[in-house]
């Protein structure tokens, strides 16, 4: 299996990440070896892994190195994260967990005379509901009096997006996706009302910081002289910054924590309980039969059917939904029941693109969403009817995700579609079960058809070569 450099691994000269099949390697370049050796020899890396902060990592003996990495000083192999996600695909709860994980990791490191040299949110990944830090070369020895050089990055990639949602009730995902380095402090400051600013944390971390950025831009030489004059940032000040941010972030919650259209869907939908139970049983039996290592659940809502797939024997489920409150509920379910379930935000009509440097830095949905099985329950009509996407394209997009899966067809007589079309013309003459079946059959083999509601909803199981 060939060795491929990860498209997002190019900024740090200390090392690079490579992927070969299911294996993930990190080379340590000669320029990065001293920092690596220092923290390794003090046992900091082992402790970070044992405490659950850092992804499982092993230094390989030279005989086990991929031959292409012969010029490296060291080669480390990492445990593979089941599904790579980006911060703009996370719910508020996930970004908050990631921010607290970063700060807790920093606090632990500082107690062991080490620091993190950056604060990029992309260095955190989720395994189920648990965040894990993936970039071992971000750990460096602490130098007495050093500033927290990644503070600005922490604010832009963690704090400011969280504040946008907590203070203004605006979800950060679209903004973050368009601005991969996060939300600048100046931009956030420009949105704050006078009353928004009335707290010590907001006044210092946002208002004052934005003001100082402006001062530095207006008078660069003066700003540099002022920083140099200070020289030292005491360890207790460093701890104070981390602790203060931790306390603040742990109290943040979305301002618009209202009931959204989907959050009660699992318990308050047009199905009857018996029909929902039949659907769960079907998914569980499907997972038991196909044993998918990775299953993608499109329109996962609160994760009810993801959980059914896991009960049936799916190894790991990545659930996607557009609704933020539903994702929070799915995250709570995954955390509460320790499920290997990762809920992520997705606008299926405009999925995450390949983007960043060379458009390879952050892989889009299409490059990552290759699974062993897919389920799309009460989903296709949101593309075909609500978004006017031709039925054959909607089905083709779902079928391309996995070799096998279950798609639910929702007929026009169903209450949800009746509501969708209540105030608009029905311009969908081709949206019929007959046409659905024909399109699906042209792309895959239909192995089962099961009616699961009185309104005529049907589960189609498919399999392709």
């Amino acid at each position, binding site marked *: 299996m060939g060795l491929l450099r990860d498209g997002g691994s190019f900024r740090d000269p200390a090392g690079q990440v490579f992927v070969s099949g299911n294996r993930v390697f990190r080379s340590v370049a000669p320029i990065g070896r001293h920092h690596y050796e220092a923290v390794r020899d003090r046992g900091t890396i082992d402790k970070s892994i044992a405490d659950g902060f850092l992804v499982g990592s092993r230094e390989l003996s030279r005989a086990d190195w991929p031959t292409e990495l012969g010029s490296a000083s060291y080669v480390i192999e990492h445990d593979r994260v089941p599904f790579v996600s980006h911060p703009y695909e996370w719910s508020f709860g996930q970004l908050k967990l990631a921010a607290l994980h970063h700060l807790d990791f920093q606090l632990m490191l500082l107690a062991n005379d080490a620091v993190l040299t950056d604060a990029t949110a992309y260095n955190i990944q989720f395994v189920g509901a648990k965040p894990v830090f993936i970039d071992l070369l971000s750990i460096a020895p602490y130098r007495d009096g050093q500033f927290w050089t990644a503070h600005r990055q922490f*604010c832009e990639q963690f704090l400011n997006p969280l504040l946008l949602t907590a203070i203004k009730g605006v979800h950060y995902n679209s903004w973050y996706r368009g601005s991969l380095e996060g939300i600048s402090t100046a931009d956030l400051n420009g949105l704050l009302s006078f009353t928004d600013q009335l707290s010590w944390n907001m*006044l210092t971390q946002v208002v004052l910081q*934005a003001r100082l950025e*402006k001062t530095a*831009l*207006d008078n660069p030489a003066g700003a540099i002289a002022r920083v140099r004059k200070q020289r030292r940032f005491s360890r207790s000040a460093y701890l104070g910054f981390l602790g203060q941010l931790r306390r603040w972030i742990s109290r943040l919650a979305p301002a618009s924590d209202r009931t959204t259209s989907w959050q009660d869907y699992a318990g308050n939908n047009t199905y009857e309980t018996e029909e929902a139970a039949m659907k769960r049983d079907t998914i569980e039996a499907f997972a038991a039969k196909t044993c998918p290592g990775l299953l993608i659940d499109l329109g996962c809502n609160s994760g009810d059917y993801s959980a059914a797939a896991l009960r049936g024997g799916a190894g790991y489920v990545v659930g996607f939904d557009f609704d933020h409150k539903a994702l929070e509920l799915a995250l709570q379910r995954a955390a509460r029941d320790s499920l290997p379930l990762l809920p992520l935000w997705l606008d299926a009509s405009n999925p995450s693109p390949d983007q960043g440097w060379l458009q390879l830095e952050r892989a889009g949905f299409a490059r990552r969403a290759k699974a062993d099985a897919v389920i799309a329950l009460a989903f296709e009509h949101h593309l075909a009817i609500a978004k006017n996407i031709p039925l054959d394209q909607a089905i083709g997009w779902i079928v391309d995700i996995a070799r096998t899966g279950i798609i639910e067809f929702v007929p026009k007589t169903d209450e949800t579609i009746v509501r969708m079309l209540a105030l608009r013309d029905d311009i969908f003459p081709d949206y019929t079960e007959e046409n659905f079946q024909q399109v699906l059959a042209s792309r895959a083999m239909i192995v089962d058809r099961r009616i699961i509601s009185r309104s005529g909803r049907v589960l189609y199981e498919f399999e392709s070569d």
Partner: protein
Amino acid sequence: MFTRIAVCVLASFFIGSTSAFAYLDPGTGSLLLQAIIGGVAASFAAGAVFWQKLKVKFSDLVSKNPRD
């Protein structure tokens, strides 16, 4: 109330902006912030440690207190 007024006065001091040359690493703003409020952050950290110690001492005192 006093804190609220003090925060208002501080806020009004920070409001307002001027044009800028966008060629300096904006991280300088973060470093300036650390230089300015590092001392306050340190005292918060010290206060938190003191508060923890006080709580431990107090709970020790309560638990050592014989009930009968």
